[in-house]
């Protein structure tokens, strides 16, 4: 088969490779059908449940000295900042307020952490000198 102008090429392809073009068109249609199926709108099945802070479902109370002592320094009794505790805004504020309340009401020491509570698990990930 001699190829001359574009028309010829197209005609040639149409004729000789007519089957091919047809099949390719069919394949394209199939692709569309397949892609339509793939793009059905649904919620992301791999979505992770929303992460909350450590105290998400815990009520913070000024009487709960053990809980509050986990967020203060054992050496100085200072309240750790948000970047250390990893709490969300609301809970950090609640903890800070509860600690101050406990200080003023005579429930918790200001300058240190109660020695019995020193062995509590470390939430804030602070490395202490043993």
């Amino acid at each position, binding site marked *: 088969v001699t190829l001359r102008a574009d028309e010829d090429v197209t005609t040639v392809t149409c004729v000789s490779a007519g089957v091919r073009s047809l099949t390719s068109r069919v394949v394209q249609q199939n692709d569309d059908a397949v892609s339509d199926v793939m793009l059905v709108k649904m919620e992301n099945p791999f979505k992770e449940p929303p992460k909350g802070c450590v105290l998400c479902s815990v009520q913070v109370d000024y009487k709960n000295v053990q809980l509050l002592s986990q967020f203060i320094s054992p050496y100085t009794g200072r309240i750790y900042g948000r970047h250390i505790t990893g709490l*969300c805004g609301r809970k950090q504020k609640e903890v800070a307020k509860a600690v101050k309340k406990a200080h003023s009401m005579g429930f918790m020491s200001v300058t240190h952490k109660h020695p019995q509570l020193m062995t509590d698990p470390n939430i804030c990930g602070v490395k202490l000198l043993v």
Partner: protein
Amino acid sequence: MPRYELALILKAMQRPETAAALRRTVETLMERGAVVRDLENLGEKLLPYKITKHNERHSRGAYFLLDFYSSPEILPGFLNHLHRDVDVVRPTVLKKDAQAPSSTNCCGSAQ
């Protein structure tokens, strides 16, 4: 009526004297028209810091929690009475908010 909570720290005393002090407090409260709901004993503990009250330095105290309903007008008078009581080391009245904080409402992770 609003609901209040009294965190009472009494001097470390013998049982009959502690009972008498508590009785005095509750009766004062009831005289002024409050309704006492609950009285909890949180035990006798070492105070977190030494407290000086009524010319006496306290290192141990008996912790009590008193729930009551009352009108807000009696509170200043009641606190005054408590401050004058020799057996009381530190009285604190707090308002109790009966909120049910929705836990699902809280935060996405801060970091």
